[in-house]
């Protein structure tokens, strides 16, 4: 069964903007934000997760910049949510206890990410590897998500 652990703390930002702001953000951040729906991109210690056609979650330090292309918004959510790592056998099965996504690794492939639900909590799910998932969840839902994952863990002991 998969291990549940808290991911190391990192800065987090929600970036929203149209194509113009986005192109400028690519330069400022030193990495291209993924334009493909439900895909994440990793560059060094930084990651950008596509959340919507004009919305990204940015993980990592040094994303806080000022752009000239308006309108755009960049909100620091570093302490709003926590990261949970799920790694090992049956990771996808454990998630499917509360998540309706098809997590077959041919469908939800490595590198894909999306907002979805896990039980009664909204989460951002990112597949980093066939058996490794990164979950972002609002802090106050953290215990609930960890608790539900612990119950799922027992199914595969």
């Amino acid at each position, binding site marked *: 069964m998969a291990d549940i652990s808290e991911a190391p703390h990192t800065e987090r930002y929600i970036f929203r903007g149209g194509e113009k702001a986005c192109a400028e953000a690519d330069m400022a951040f030193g990495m291209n934000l993924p334009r493909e729906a439900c895909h994440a991109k990793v560059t060094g210690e930084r990651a950008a997760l596509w959340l919507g056609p004009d919305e990204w979650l940015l993980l990592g330090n040094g994303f806080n910049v000022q752009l000239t292309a308006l309108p755009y918004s960049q909100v620091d959510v570093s302490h709003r949510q926590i990261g949970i790592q799920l790694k090992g056998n049956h990771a996808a099965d454990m998630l499917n206890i509360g998540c*309706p996504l098809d997590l077959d690794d041919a469908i939800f492939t490595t590198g894909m990410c999306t907002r979805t639900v896990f039980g009664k909590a909204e989460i951002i799910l990112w597949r980093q590897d066939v058996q490794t998932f990164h979950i972002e969840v609002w802090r106050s839902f953290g215990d609930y998500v960890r608790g539900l994952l612990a119950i799922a863990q027992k199914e595969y002991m």
Partner: protein
Amino acid sequence: MLLIKCPYCGERSELEFSYGGQAHIVRPLIPSDITDEALTEYLYHRDNIKGVQAERWRHLHGCGRFFNAVRDTTTDHFQATYKIGEAQPASGAKSDG
């Protein structure tokens, strides 16, 4: 499980979506210039069709975007989904679900 096709994310579980009422209702440009009856019509009156109707839906626990859908309210069958701003696709009045 009912799957709904988000125009951005593809087919996803209905659990991720929320309903947004009748689609293609145009807000009056200057609401103070129209009659009370016309404003009432805009604010409150909806078709509530038994059969095929165009609706707004939101991929709330997904990309977060609003989009439009053509749905048969008697069978819950989604005939089509399309982005806000696009024209409503032509549809057959009947559907086998």
